[in-house]
């Protein structure tokens, strides 16, 4: 558990900053403070992370952007895990034709580059509100969870205690709640961290392309978009969101690595 403390603590810090954004942010994140006087200002005492082309305060946008970026990624993980667990568990329990069909569909989804699939969805639906964006991100990211859950469920179904429970005629609900789902938890933990580390940069990329979180609302990706065409002159518009994105992704990757190491040690 000690190895997990540092990454979990950092992620909790990120989450806290997002939750407390209204208290922590020095300015209104979408207010054009002084379009003529203070657009594109370098970091200073008044604006710790500078201002963007519309004279909005970057620190405030970064804090509110954390709400959008982390919130969407977290919701996407919840959707991906639910779908993945459903597909994986059904495939493992049913076996045979159903199993083959579900796994072939999983392969097909994996064969479509995820970003292109997201672009296709956005092309078909037009700009998406944040909740829908999270749902779509989740719906395109359940495959690795499904594979992991299928494998683990098959293993669990073959263990002595589950076989004994089935032989004793334990009701199906109790079997799942009491014996299989708890056994799946470590696997789901790994799947969740991996899914988070994939969803966060994808949301940032979509927002950077102008197809994710819609302006004037901030996300870590669309703050960077404002630097387009003046990368050096407005370096702070690239630097600070980059640190946030890389920091959160790296922490999630570190957590994924340590959680899977623990799982291997336990097995």
């Amino acid at each position, binding site marked *: 558990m000690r190895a997990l403390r540092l990454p979990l603590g950092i992620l909790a810090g990120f989450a806290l900053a997002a939750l407390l954004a209204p208290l922590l942010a020095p300015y209104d994140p979408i207010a054009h403070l002084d379009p003529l006087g203070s657009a594109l200002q370098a970091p200073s005492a008044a604006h710790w992370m500078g201002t963007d082309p519309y004279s909005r305060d970057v620190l405030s946008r970064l804090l509110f952007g954390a709400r959008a970026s982390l919130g969407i990624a977290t919701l996407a993980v919840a959707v991906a895990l639910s779908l993945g667990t459903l597909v994986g568990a059904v495939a493992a329990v049913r076996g045979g034709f159903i199993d083959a069909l579900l796994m*072939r*569909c999983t*392969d*097909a*989804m*994996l*064969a*479509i*580059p*995820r*970003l*292109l*699939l997201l*672009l*296709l*969805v*956005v*092309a*078909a*639906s*037009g700009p998406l509100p944040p909740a829908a964006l999270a749902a779509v991100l989740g719906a395109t990211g359940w495959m690795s969870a499904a594979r992991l859950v299928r494998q683990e469920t098959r293993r669990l179904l073959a263990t002595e205690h589950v076989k004994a429970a089935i032989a004793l005629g334990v009701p199906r609900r109790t079997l799942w709640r009491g014996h299989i789902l708890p056994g799946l938890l470590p696997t789901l933990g790994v799947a969740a961290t991996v899914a988070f*580390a994939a969803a966060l*940069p994808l949301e*940032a*990329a979509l927002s*950077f*392309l*102008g*197809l994710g979180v819609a302006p004037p609302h901030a996300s870590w990706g669309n703050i*960077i978009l404002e*630097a387009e065409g003046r*990368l*050096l002159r407005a*370096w702070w518009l*690239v630097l600070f969101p*980059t640190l946030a*994105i*890389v920091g959160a*992704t*790296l922490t999630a*990757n*570190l957590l994924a*690595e340590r959680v899977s190491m623990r799982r291997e040690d336990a097995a």
Partner: protein
Amino acid sequence: MTRVLVVRLAQALAVIGIVVTLCFALIRLAPGDPFFAALDQPGVPPETAAAMREAFGYDRPLHEQYLRFVSNLARGDLGFSHSRSRPVSEVIAALLPNSLLLSGTGLLLGTVFGVSIGAWQGWRAESRWARASDRALLALSSIPEFVLALLLAMLFALELRWLPVSGMHDEGINGIVDVLRHLVLPASTLAIMVGAILARHQRAAMRELRDAEFIRAARASGIPERRVLFRHALRNASAPVLTVLGVMLGAVAGGTVLIERVFDWPGMGRAVVEAVGQRDYPLVVGAVIVTSIAVTLATVLADLAVAWANPRLRNRL
């Protein structure tokens, strides 16, 4: 080997069938048809809209549209790009080579970079440098490709002015050297992304092999260390690494889209992003299908390469 090939190709065909169906479903389930932005306007007479829809078959029942979609695809007809006023297949044929040049160079460089660093790290796992560089690679693989592209552009193109920042040619110049100069930054971005992930798998594979019986036996029989490394360890480590490479191809295709967007590289990815903005569905669908087919076939190739590299796995595919 032939049996493996046949089975894998049949699976690939099934996968492509599902991809095509999914694309069709997504577009047709969306509110309105591809024309609704252009035609359902107050200024457009309803008869004109209806005539246009009839001409493109959007008034037919769904199953008929689906059959038409599939049979057109089979004949290589990907539809008409509304925003570029040209057949989608022409647009893609013009841009695909540029994308392949970028992603191919990036993959190649990334594989060389990842395999050599990972092999060194795994072989010298106790060295402090090997461990430190592994942490560095984890950090590197946590940088999204578009951010990495921006950072490289800022440093090497804008600040140091060593390399061009966008496009594929300088105006008026049309030489290979010029294209290569433009290729360096986009391809390096992709190579770093591929290499950082690959190296970590290569390292794990090498570490496992390093203490394997057959490696120790080879050493004990007096085979030089260099030969043990290259002939025995690297070849056996190539199977898991090739598998990872196959799995990564989709991410590479997505990364190429973003890198093309940042460096204004005239490839399919940049065109797709523009097409999404203009709601030019046929071009987006065409690009998704072509890319998915390419990724699926490349994955089959990777599987065959795995079977070639490790005969023990042949029967398990």
